[in-house]
């Protein structure tokens, strides 16, 4: 995975300037606190953020036409980096690589820039509109909000919270997971044990494949999107599943039963583990299977 990420970053660094037309090369370096805040604003283009062992922030890259200046300022070790659009009305873009102290708290704000983040141990907060966001490594907490950009979080160790409107959410790893989307898919393949999970969609599908820690709680909710839960077995948790008109397929235990004579609603309660898994849909199908 790491090799894949580095290859993507290298490709971005090589191709992005070629695609952008008129370019201004930039290179800045300012002092930073080891656990300070680094705020990065880059509306369009690309952004690669990586952690390093120095108490400095280094910014390299190219500014395309429509970007007036790169502002890099440090006040008492807190750093702000901004690719500042000009007043020409052109949609400017910048392709930046930013190195920050690896325990920094990093906040990224963009509209359409492609964002790659790796090697951070502090908190990461990304706000985007349409650009894809990819995070690899082990920030203590990851929070990403976007409208249509796809979000991928790999090897997270702590809290992960992602919200999209129709962007696809992919999470690998993490113990405390929250994801919400309207029509985007949520795909979670936990590398470790999940302690808390909360996922909700309207029409997007949810795939939750993970091991559950003792006492874990997972809540999955959908209107019409399908939900698939893959766990080590029926002993992993106590399952409570209900769907008003969606089909429930249980490969872990007993079939679902009708909740009442005059309702299409089906319910299913089974399992012996001390974790809890709640699944609720209106018309979306539910599948429970062994991982």
């Amino acid at each position, binding site marked *: 995975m790491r090799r894949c990420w580095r290859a993507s970053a290298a490709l971005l660094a090589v191709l992005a300037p070629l695609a952008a037309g008129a370019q201004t090369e930039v290179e800045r370096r300012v002092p930073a606190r080891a656990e300070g805040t680094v705020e990065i604003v880059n509306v369009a283009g690309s952004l690669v953020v990586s952690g390093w062992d120095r108490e400095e922030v280094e910014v390299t890259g190219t500014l395309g036409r429509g970007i007036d200046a790169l502002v890099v300022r440090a006040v008492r070790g807190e750093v702000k980096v901004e690719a500042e659009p000009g007043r020409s009305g052109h949609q400017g873009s910048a392709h930046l690589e930013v190195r920050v102290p690896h325990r920094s708290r990093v906040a990224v704000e963009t509209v359409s820039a492609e964002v790659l983040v790796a090697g951070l141990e502090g908190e990461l907060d990304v706000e985007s509109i349409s650009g894809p966001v990819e995070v690899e490594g082990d920030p203590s907490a990851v929070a990403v909000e976007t409208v249509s950009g796809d979000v991928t979080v790999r090897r997270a160790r702590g809290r992960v919270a992602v919200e999209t409107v129709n962007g696809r959410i992919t999470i690998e790893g993490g113990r405390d997971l929250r994801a919400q989307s309207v*029509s985007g898919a949520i795909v979670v393949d936990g590398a470790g044990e999940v302690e808390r999970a909360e996922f909700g969609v309207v029409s997007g599908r949810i795939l939750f494949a993970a091991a559950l820690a003792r006492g874990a709680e997972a809540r999955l909710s959908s209107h019409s999107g399908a939900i698939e839960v893959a766990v080590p077995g029926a002993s992993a948790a106590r399952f409570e599943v209900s769907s008003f008109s969606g089909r429930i397929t249980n490969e872990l235990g007993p079939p679902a039963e009708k909740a009442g004579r005059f309702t299409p609603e089906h319910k299913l309660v089974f399992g012996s583990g001390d974790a809890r898994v709640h699944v609720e849909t209106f018309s979306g199908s539910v599948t429970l299977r062994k991982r």
Partner: protein
Amino acid sequence: MKEPECDDVTLQDFVDGWLDAAQEGRVREHLAACARCRAEERQLRRLLARVAELPRTVAPPHDLWPGVAARLGGRRASPPAEVEAIERPRRARSWNVRRWVLQTAAAIVFTALGAALGRLIPDAGETTAAAVRPASSSAFAAAETEYLRAKDALWLVAASRRDELSPVTMEIVRRNLVLIDEAIWELRQALAADPGNPHLESLLLAQHRRGLDLLRRLSARSA
């Protein structure tokens, strides 16, 4: 599917002045014959007037935004005041003041909503259906009314920023709001056939909350 002539989104677009002449004509024709939509239109226009009365030039106190952000479910606190004063470019500062005004409008809506829902729903900060189950079925109608009021008001806040959002983004948001509205309509139909079903009520409130959350995010962004 929802009947197009009673479509809430179309009505909101009508009030916002987003429709072309032909569409406007069809909506006016429908309003002449539909008391429910006329009532909704009046309510929307009243809310629009309230939003228009919000202050435009007031400077936010430095310590207000973290509390507002927390109430809205936002995550990012302002940078320290001193850093902000030194670093913020002039253009970005005026944008932020405008954003603050709009977010204040959203905060007013959410403050009212939070106070109402706090009495009705055990944990109003959650969005999954099970977590937003009302304390009792009798509280459900009151909770839904509060959601609808807040949603209407927040939509107007979001709509007031349509010039700042790209057409592509607005189209994505609109389509997804329609998805949410269709889900709400299906749930209402199911509830009409099975009144008081707690599962359906909780799913319905969860969809309302999802719509609110989307509008809240839209109100706080530009593209």
